[in-house]
């Protein structure tokens, strides 16, 4: 068991470590480790206008995706949880699980077909890109929050609050949202990480000016190794940053509630 864990960590950590090493290497070809130390690859990535634009696009998409996940996912999960009818719960559950089951490529080609038509010519807009990210990530929010509602027995607390004379919106503000803050936060961590790293659909449907960071990153691998490594490390940092930011925002808003 220990051996397997060790091997797993090795496979996980080694590529990341090598990327890090490579990003500071002067030149790297046909050797185990690169030669020389330089920061010029990072400066080049930072100076590259297409990387700059992609960086900003990615951040916009992540923020919008997280916000929409809360705005859509939380009420959806609540509706599923509160619905007494079995059929409604089942239908909602299938709908929420579908994006996980369907391969991203299928969804992407579907988007291309529908949104390149004259009636809905939105292919390439950042709005459509955000919509795609929301569809891909929403199941994680709905499922996490729904599981938390069931485990907490949220309905019992709502009943208690009702007997203490709290009307619906007061219950929502004082009981439901604070109790769910932790699971919303943890689902947003997943959503942010998924959205930052999403490649398949973004590559298919993003317009030239709204390409996200991973899409542009692919280009880097046709150039210098050091440049590619540096650009990838930036993506890694971006993912960590997005996760931290989303969790901080969620905890701050729950404290205010």
């Amino acid at each position: 068991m220990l051996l397997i864990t060790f091997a797993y960590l090795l496979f996980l950590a080694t590529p990341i470590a090598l990327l890090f090493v490579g990003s500071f290497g002067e030149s790297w070809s046909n050797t185990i480790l690169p030669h020389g130390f330089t920061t010029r690859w990072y400066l080049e990535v930072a100076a590259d206008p297409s990387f700059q634009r992609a960086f900003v696009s990615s951040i916009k998409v992540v923020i919008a995706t997280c916000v929409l996940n809360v705005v859509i996912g939380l009420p959806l999960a609540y509706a599923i949880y509160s619905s007494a009818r079995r059929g409604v719960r089942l239908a909602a559950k299938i709908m929420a699980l579908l994006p996980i089951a369907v391969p991203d490529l299928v969804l992407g080609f579907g988007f291309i077909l529908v949104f390149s038509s004259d009636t809905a010519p939105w292919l390439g807009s950042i709005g459509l890109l955000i919509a795609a990210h929301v569809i891909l990530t929403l199941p994680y929010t709905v499922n996490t929050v729904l599981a938390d509602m069931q485990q907490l027995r949220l309905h019992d607390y709502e009943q208690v609050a009702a007997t203490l004379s709290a009307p619906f919106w007061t219950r929502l503000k004082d009981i439901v949202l604070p109790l769910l803050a932790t699971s919303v936060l943890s689902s947003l961590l997943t959503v942010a990480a998924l959205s930052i790293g999403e490649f398949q659909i973004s590559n298919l449907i993003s317009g030239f000016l709204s390409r996200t960071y991973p899409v542009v990153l692919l280009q880097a691998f046709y150039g210098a190794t050091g440049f590619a490594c540096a650009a990838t490390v930036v993506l890694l940092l971006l993912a960590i940053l997005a996760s931290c930011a989303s969790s901080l925002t969620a905890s701050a808003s729950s404290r205010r509630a």
Partner: protein
Amino acid sequence: MTIQFQSIDYRYPGSANGVFDVDLSIGDGEFLAVIGPSGSGKTTLLKLLAGFARPAAGRILVDGRDITDLPPEKRRLGVVFQSYGLFPHMSALDNVAYPLKIRGQARAERRARAAQALERVGLAQWAHSMPAAMSGGQQQRIALARALVFSPSALLLDEPLSALDAALRVEMREEILRVQRAANIATLHITHDQEEALSIADRIAIMRAGRIIQIGTPKELYDQPVSRWVASFIGQANLWEGRVGPDRRSVRTPIGELSCDTGEHAADAPVTVLIRPEAILPGDLAPAGTNILAGRVQADRFLGAARRVDLAVGEGLVRVDTHSRAPFDTIAVPPKSIRLLPPEPVSDSVNAIGERT
């Protein structure tokens, strides 16, 4: 401060369960317990009163105010749930202050009142603890304080003691009664524990299959049950099929002929004979004029304060609870301890002793 159920009917969708034709009234400051086996509709009664279910027919009045169509948040009732339902993200004090917050009381005022309420249940020093850090008994007290802090019109207790261990349960029922008396509030207490109901309730309503089959003081229910089933549900009971004697001065039972007051029952009428185990005495302690019967001891258990002896007498089995520690093989049955109930099938009892199998 009264609660009235008037001809209440409610059926769970898609099932035959529910409550039917319930008339019940709880007086000012009265503590009424509703008992019954699971599925008898006692929790449904509480749901209807709290507003989590609407009756199909009938009215519910609290203090003369018709609350049948009001949502739970407009009913002003204090409810203590089986699981307590303390909000896990709030301290004990915040939990108790919450209903006052909803009523728009200023922060300082509501915290002072909540602190007083905690003091009344003996938990002043726990005000700033979180519910997860407290024991079941403490959580129970906080739930009680929270249910009463806003001076509700009535108090509803939904099996509040069932999650506690036996020793704590006895202590907590004293506590509940003390707090209820201090608040002097009409109280509906749901329980499946007949001993708990006997010990704290002013009156008990006993439910079966959605209907109230008897209401009375604990003594009335214990001494004058309306049926074999009630007799066997409340306390221990010796129950036999019997027949009134031709001169209506005695009753024939499997354990022998017992002289007793046969009341309204006709000569030769079939009856169910009830004798509580503690009413039967060892034969040598018999006062004059009692029925003396000889038997053979089958089991003799020492229970500390009492001793429980099962004897084979005639064709039947007799359970005797006595304080006497001396051995005995005759029993004395005082005529006054014999109660004749309508005849009912033997199977219609919960834990009756008597019929030998």
